[in-house]
């Protein structure tokens, strides 16, 4: 593992950060060579499962002010069921692994600990706790260390926070105690939504080293700004949900589009995230060797126009879902529904996955507006110039929240 102490508490200037990256390139080459030797020796015993013909090209970035030098493609262990995939990922050079106390009630941490074994010291290891008070958090940490068979975590996250109010002082104190005890090296927060509110607070608070955030090509520009602001403050950025939930669906009540089910579409989505200079690493979930090999390619290939085309096709397919807030529909509803507001509320749930907030906002509408059912109208009087299917979207909002 390569550790470069940064100027703790200070943002690293972009230019010096690039120099930092350039300066560190020699080490990975040496490491990759030794891994190649390792692979070659193991192939004498039996052909490695689905192994690439040569050692993969690895790409490294520095994780913000932590100074940790990590592969841009890390490994999200959440749904991995077989330790062999993790063991092979380490041998191939991936050096960033993530799990959490709550994944399968701790069984995931146990499996990761077994898979890493003696290789633990070669990699950067992170885990998380959902607990809400100091004592429970510290108890979780001790359990994580025991299950992962290690005496320290490189990064320990307060898990799944979406607003500043969810992060209490005693949680921060728990991380501080763990840091002082040498049980963790860096403090993190993980977040699936609410980044626009959370990011400025995290920067202002100044106690967190790493933010693990949901981030993918389906998100809008305000997300880019939120994440970039964290990066500029020297906070390491780890991207998760980089494949937009594996394209099982768009998360908008729609099935996955055929464009996204094509071979290579996931790789395009991963490359899109890695194309953002303010993202330091990613933790795509991997369940098998094929997925591992495909994800490794994201470090060797740049985001191309062909990748862009795949992702644009998917975005085009979900275009009827997004309101551009142009105001063209103001006053157009025969029942005086605030169309743009209601579409925005639905976006809280579908776009940002803030279902609770969406329901709360919906219930702040007038009783008349809450009572209206678009399905009762024979024909919708609202025609969106951008192609948003207004009646369908409002019906979904009424079904979900009314």
């Amino acid at each position, binding site marked *: 593992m390569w550790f470069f102490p940064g100027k703790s508490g200070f943002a690293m200037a972009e230019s010096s950060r690039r120099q930092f990256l350039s300066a560190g390139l020699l080490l990975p080459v040496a490491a990759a060579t030794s891994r190649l030797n390792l692979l070659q020796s*193991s*192939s004498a*015993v*039996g*052909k*490695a*499962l*689905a*192994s690439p013909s040569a050692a993969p090209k690895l790409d490294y970035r520095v994780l913000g002010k932590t100074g940790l030098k990590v592969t841009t493609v890390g490994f999200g262990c*959440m*749904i*991995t*069921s*077989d330790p*062999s*995939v993790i*063991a*092979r990922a380490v041998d191939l050079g991936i050096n960033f692994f993530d799990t*959490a106390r*709550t*994944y*399968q*009630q*701790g*069984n995931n941490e146990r499996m990761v600990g077994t898979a890493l074994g003696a290789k633990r010291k070669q990699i950067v290891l992170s885990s*998380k706790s*959902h607990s809400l008070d100091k004592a429970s958090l510290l108890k979780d940490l001790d359990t994580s260390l025991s299950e992962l068979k290690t005496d320290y975590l490189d990064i320990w996250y307060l*898990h*799944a926070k*979406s607003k500043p109010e969810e992060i209490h002082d005693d949680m921060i104190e728990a991380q501080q105690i763990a840091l002082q005890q040498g049980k963790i090296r860096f403090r993190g927060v*993980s977040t*699936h939504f609410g980044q626009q509110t959370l990011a400025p607070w995290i920067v202002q608070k100044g106690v967190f080293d790493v933010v693990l955030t949901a981030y993918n090509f389906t998100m809008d520009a305000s997300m880019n700004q939120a994440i970039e602001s964290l990066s500029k403050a020297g906070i390491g950025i780890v991207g998760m949900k980089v494949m937009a939930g594996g394209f*099982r*669906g768009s*998360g908008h*009540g729609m099935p996955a589009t055929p464009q996204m089910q094509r071979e290579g579409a996931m790789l395009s989505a991963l490359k899109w995230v890695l194309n953002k200079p303010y993202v330091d690493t990613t933790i795509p*979930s991997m*369940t*098998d*060797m*094929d*997925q591992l090999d495909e994800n490794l390619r994201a470090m060797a290939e740049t985001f191309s126009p062909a990748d862009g085309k795949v992702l644009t096709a998917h975005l085009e397919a979900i275009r009827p879902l997004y309101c551009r807030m142009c105001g063209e529909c103001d006053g157009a509803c025969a029942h005086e529904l605030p169309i743009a507001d209601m579409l925005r509320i639905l976006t809280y*749930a*579908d776009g940002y*996955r*803030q*279902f*609770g907030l969406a329901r709360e906002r919906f219930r702040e509408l007038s009783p008349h507006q809450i009572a209206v059912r678009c399905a009762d109208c024979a024909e919708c009087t609202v025609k969106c110039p951008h192609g948003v299917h207004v009646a369908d979207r409002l019906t979904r909002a009424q079904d*979900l929240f009314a």
Partner: protein
Amino acid sequence: MRWFVHMLCFYCAASIAGAQNYLDCHLVPGWEQAGAPRSYTPDNLYDYRDGAAEGYLIFGFTHMRGIDCKHGASTLSIDVSEMADADSAWGMFAANRDPKLPVAPLGMGGQVLPQSLLFARGRSFVEIVETDGDSAANQSAAIQAFATKMLPLLDGRETPPEPVQWFSAESRTSVRLVPQSVLGLRVLRRGYVASYEQGQAFIVSEDSSEAASAVMKKLREHFSTASPVQISDEAFQGKVSYLDGICIFRKGHFVAGYTNLPDATQAASLAAQLATHIPAN
């Protein structure tokens, strides 16, 4: 036609009533419902299980209903998740239980902890957790009472998936359903894995013998240094990267075997024993 509609309405009402009555705080005297019932689908499960929803989705989660029950200062959260099928519900239970603790005889399997309880029956995966509590009041008896009352109100199978019984119980540390990529190999789409103090065994069911043969062909290509061995319809053994000593065989439409053993001969010996427990068809 009208009688049909009435019958349909009656059936629907009865179904709804039946489906709802297992979520009732009054199942155990002294407990009252706190707040409104909750309901989640794959679209919004993240709102409730933020950071852990994926663990449900991989087992074919379709929806969840839940309530909070209060007694004095204690609150129990009771959630019932419906999974794709009974095997998946059992898989969810097996993935979330602590393998170091015993399985309780609740439905297809249950686990009782001081402040929580899990069990699965049919397509339902049930979680009862003390979320708020008076540390002096031990609610484990109430948690178990809820589970006992709920169990007969749920529908479906009460025995674990059949292949689970085919694994040897000797020195077994856990048994689970892997919902995708058994052994980390995409070709083995979904199956059961039993871990032992040394090594692990797996069983994958394909749609037909032909499909299982096709899987074996791909596996032989992967493990090109492995050599044939005589077990059931076809088999091979070898020592390979990451899985050490392996032996994989096909019996009818099942592909199964042992891995992670010190040598291939030992894997073959155990695989041969496993084969005798797997039915021919």
